[in-house]
């Protein structure tokens, strides 16, 4: 059994799942670490392992997307031109 069973590709690992918009980055990160720890402990049954993996993968993708989305932007509150070069 196993590989012969269809529906192998239904796991969406980039789905943000139910990670709310305003969740702090560090909270998502520590939940991800928690998922990994529990998965690695080997105590989780198969259903639980799958759940942990999906949740972890979603958290990981979410964290990475958050980091990727951050862009450099230097603004001068006191009236300088916006987007002025860094390190001037």
């Amino acid at each position, binding site marked *: 059994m196993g590989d012969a*069973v269809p529906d192998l590709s239904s*796991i969406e690992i980039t789905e943000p799942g139910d990670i709310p918009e305003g969740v702090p980055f560090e909270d998502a990160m520590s939940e991800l*670490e928690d998922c990994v720890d529990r998965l690695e402990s080997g105590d989780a049954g*198969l259903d639980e392992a799958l759940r942990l993996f999906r949740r972890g993968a979603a958290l990981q993708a979410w964290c990475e997307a958050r980091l990727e989305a*951050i862009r450099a932007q230097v603004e001068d*509150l*006191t009236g*300088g031109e916006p987007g002025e070069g860094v390190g001037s």
Partner: protein
Amino acid sequence: MVDDVARARVFEVDEVVSALERVISENTRTVYIRGEVVNLRSGRDGRLLWFRLEDPREGHDARVDCFAYATDVEHGHELADGAMVQAVARPEFSRRDGRLIIRLRRIEPAGEGEILRMIEERRRRLGAEGLFDEAIKRPLPFLPTGVGLVTAAGSAARADVLMRIEGRFPMRVVVAHAAMQGAACVAEVTRAIAALDADPRVDVIIVARGGGSLQDLLPFSDETVVRAVRASSTPVVAGIGHDPDTTLACLAADARGATPTAAADLVVPDRALMLEDLDALRRRLAGGALRAAGRARRELDLIAARPGLVRPHDAVVRRPLEAAGALGARLGRAARDAVVMPGRDLRALRARRMLAIGAADTGSAARLAVHTARLAACDPARPLAEGFALVRDDAGALVQSAGSLPAGMLLSLQFRDGLVAARVEEEDA
């Protein structure tokens, strides 16, 4: 009493003032005075300066009006509010203003010892209020949404902080320029902190200034600045001066770096390290899932192969087992996908790092780790070590179903430490 005053002679103002002038000049002498400059103003051409000198020591409230010519300020020293100075003082009675005023000459910064003592007194007083307590320090955001920067326009500190943020994690920086020394410093720094505190894009503020003389840094030990740091609801990180310059604003700040660059390090995490951490977590996640899938498959194979569990219990046992097998397969597949297809930027990042340091191919290493985990999961010796046995029929083929075994067939059972022969007594009922 007033009535007793002789009215025989009425004095002109000039006569009274002249008398006062005489009294002052005959009964006072030139002295050396020390105090804090307050309320500094200058004439239109900048040649004449007026200010008050105050006794900055705790519990002393004496103050006196002073004036000086700009040329009386010792070369290289700029007079500013809050500056501690010492000077040659000569009291005068001003005819035009009708008041006592002290003419100062040879104005120079007060001695360091005096300034340090003044700061120490202030530190004790504000410390007694709890302004420097560790317990009230606010935590810095793990990942800032935007960094506020209070610094002088065009300063080296500004360049240092921006360069460090650019290098560690390019993100939004909102700069509020302020004079970082001199007369305007206290007011402008206070205003800048408040402005950034009110800016919703900013969730941590750096106050950055390079090292300087004790006099230059004096505004950062000003009580107004100290209170502005504590009044901010956004955490404030001080990067003022270079060790061991420590100002009271540094003590009041929620965190402080020894330099502006060190302050930036405290505020902004290292993007490459965070991505590496995330990548490592992703690989561990996938590895854990692969092992869970492998573990499940081994157990299922062994259970499913047991005689007596196959045919009569199709509905009860087999279908759940298959469903579990499917779960395991999906888990394994997803885990492999998760490892073999790393994030786009991560790959580029890793490639760059490899070019830079000539490190081993970590992508290959990751795949190797997964293959190793998969191999380990498939190792038939592992179930044997746990007490399971492999069953082969008389042709040497692995027996996976009890249904294929006629009574009387000779089987070989492979245990961890060797083979034994066995015979099927009776077929599955």
